[in-house]
């Protein structure tokens, strides 16, 4: 996915990625990334938990305005709900 973000960014469109593996993101280097500690298959949160999903979306979107240099990977503060 980071490779797709890089291609889009090279076309002159800003991108933000939600990533599930910090290690992969550190190697592929998408322009902006939010790292969530969620299980594969649920990148924004569990099914039916729209507030959790929305919180991740808001955090990731904010990086578009907040970050000012390429390759940053920001840790999400959103927890997987019990």
């Amino acid at each position: 996915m980071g490779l797709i973000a890089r291609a889009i960014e090279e076309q002159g469109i800003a991108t933000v990625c939600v990533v599930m593996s910090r290690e992969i993101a550190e190697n592929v280097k998408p322009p902006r990334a939010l790292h969530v500690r969620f299980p594969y298959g649920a990148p924004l949160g569990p099914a039916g938990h729209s507030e959790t999903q929305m919180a991740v979306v808001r955090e990731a979107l904010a990086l578009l305005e907040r970050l000012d240099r390429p390759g940053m990977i920001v840790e999400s503060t959103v927890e997987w709900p019990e």
Partner: protein
Amino acid sequence: MLNSKLAAVQANVQRRWDPHFEWIHNEAAPWTPLAKPLAQCTIGLVTTCGLYRADVQLPFDAWHDLGDPSFREIHIDTPADRLRIAHTHYNHQHLAADLNVALPIAHFARLVAEGAVGRLSPWTYSFMGYLPQTRQLVNETAPAVARRLKADGVDAAFLTPC
């Protein structure tokens, strides 16, 4: 350069599916600053969850050892029951029950209604994220989607994995 976790995944992929697989390592990332406030931006969604429209599109070749670098365009008004997942490398339970787990159309509708985001682009783009051979993605299909996003008037792309 690879930590032990990625080295183990690389060895596993090489043994089971693709003897030539190696993780990509980039030293730097490209950069396009956001051109205007989010409240004025058109956002485009891109996901690598392997979603496709079962009624009008062929599934990704999710069972191929070398992956499938193609993409599918999915309109935001597509009824959820027309969508299927073709991806054999994650548990589909959450996404099959709730599209917004990875394709947050409802959440962006809310952000637009709030005024936090200008507009959601009507076209989203779907890839299948298991892809040990990336050349065709990097040279052809990812740039093709980038050009489509440009033609769609997208100011910023929001990407989700699975």
